């Protein structure tokens, strides 16, 4: 399948702070790609390199198969970008900002812009300086979508949107995805990644921790085991971490051989046993913790 974003050993060093280190990720056409990491992990740095706003110290960043350093203008014409904290010219009216963006792209996007403003309930006659954070976010969404880009790069795009608008936003993303757009979605809201993304990468302290399909990540991560009617694990039991005890039950994440798990559990008495897929939060923590907490 066609590759839309590829970074190879991408590194960005700042004078004092770490940026990203040897980051290699691949986003295929049609992916809804989740880019997960805590604040300061290097998500925005990666995005800014992909947009040509900053230059990498070493490594390669390609979008649509082209080097962003060499074909920046051509690449950007196919990208829609929603920044995490967008600032627009404050004295401008919303409609003028939308028109200016379309003009910068040398496109007539008036019809699509009107449709998007309608869906997002964005008042176009207001001045940007009068908009709340959520409404500025809506403006960012319109600016990113109005020219129907092939690639959407979204940096914490749903922050500031109320639940109804978040739903409208994801409906729009689904529409665009159905029409063939690739979506690169940076976030630390893990439930969104799990719910909407097909593939994901976890980044920690500037380095890639893991990159895979969300399904595989769920499978490769530990399972959540819950024993009811029991609060103690067998002595010498290994492979369990994130152990919690509540209301006469013990719950833990387990990664290891299930045959051995079942054999070890025979040493304790319990009423009920459940094995479930971990949620995204647990997957994240599983890959994110430097060392797992041993039971």
């Amino acid at each position, binding site marked *: 399948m066609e590759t839309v974003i590829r970074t190879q050993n991408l590194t960005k060093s700042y004078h004092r702070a770490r940026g990203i280190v040897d980051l290699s990720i691949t986003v295929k056409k049609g992916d809804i790609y989740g880019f997960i990491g805590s604040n300061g992990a290097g998500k925005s740095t990666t995005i*800014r390199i992909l947009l040509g*706003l900053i230059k990498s110290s070493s490594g390669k960043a390609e979008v649509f198969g082209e080097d962003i350093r060499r074909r920046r*203008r051509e*690449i950007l014409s196919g990208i829609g*970008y929603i920044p995490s904290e967008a*600032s*627009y010219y404050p004295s401008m009216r919303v409609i003028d900002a939308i028109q200016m963006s379309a003009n910068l792209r040398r496109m007539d996007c008036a019809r699509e812009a009107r449709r998007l403003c309608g869906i997002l309930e964005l008042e176009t006659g207001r001045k940007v300086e009068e908009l709340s954070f959520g409404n500025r976010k809506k403006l960012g969404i319109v600016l990113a979508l109005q020219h129907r880009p092939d690639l959407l790069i979204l940096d914490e795009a749903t922050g500031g949107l109320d639940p109804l608008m978040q739903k409208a936003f994801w409906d729009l993303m689904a529409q665009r995805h159905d029409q063939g757009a690739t979506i690169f979605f940076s976030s630390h809201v893990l439930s969104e990644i799990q719910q909407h993304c097909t593939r994901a990468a976890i980044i920690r302290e500037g380095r890639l921790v893991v990159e895979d399909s969300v399904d595989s990540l769920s499978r490769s991560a530990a399972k959540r085991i819950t024993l009811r009617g029991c609060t103690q694990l067998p002595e010498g039991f290994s492979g369990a971490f994130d152990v919690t005890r509540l209301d006469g039950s013990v719950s833990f994440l387990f990664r290891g051989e299930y045959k051995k798990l079942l054999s070890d559990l025979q040493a304790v008495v319990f009423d009920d046993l459940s094995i479930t897929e971990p949620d995204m939060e647990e997957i994240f923590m599983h890959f994110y913790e430097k060392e797992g907490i041993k039971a």
Partner: protein
Amino acid sequence: MTVLRYETRRGLRSAVIWALSLSAFTLAAMLLYPQVSHYSNIFNNVIARLGILSEIFSLNDMDVFEFMNYYGLEVGNFIGLGGGMFAAVTGITIVAREEGRHTAEFLFPHPIGRLSILTQKFVSLIIQIAVLNLVCILASRLGAGMIGESFPGRVFTDFHLSLFLMNLQVAVICFGISCLKKRDSAVPGLGIVLVFYFLNLFINVNREAATLKNFTPYYYTDIARITKASGPLWPAIGIGFAAAGVILLIGVIRFVKKDLAI
């Protein structure tokens, strides 16, 4: 041309406000001329006693009550200093503002080259300075008509051309510096203009410091020097613009290559 249109529309309001303010001062000074010239004998005695002050403002090099000289001195101060400040404030913030106010994250992800953005902003800056100068010239013509005086065409043109070029040189320098800055503070621009202005006053007092003349564009806007040279002081203008061009070039090259602070 989108950036040019936006910048010009945004900046023109400010340019017109500055121009009207300077024009008001200019008109006031011109309307005082008939009374001032009527008491020229008294004022000449005062000037003769000013000593070093008359040298600072080049009052001893010419008949300050001749209409064009009077105009050049007064307007030289108003439009020279005010226009220089406008050029500096506008020039030093026009690029740095994008990073300083975080609008770079809106503008630069569009498919438009940084050099194109800089070019359009620079052209807009020139347009704004031209508008300011044009309004001031029109106000001067109006003022002259109101008091029944007329300007000697050649000297008037040379003088205003020199003022415009001085504004432009300040703008070029500040634009170059703006490309290097990450915050949109106007203070450095105002500082530059004041240093240039006072450097010219310093040169007026210390004739042996004339070698500094190439370091201040105010030197070539002095009406006495323009009259004496029978035209704009092209060597000083040329050297001034060459130096400003180097600063501009350094700024543009750096801006095109640098990481944008967002």
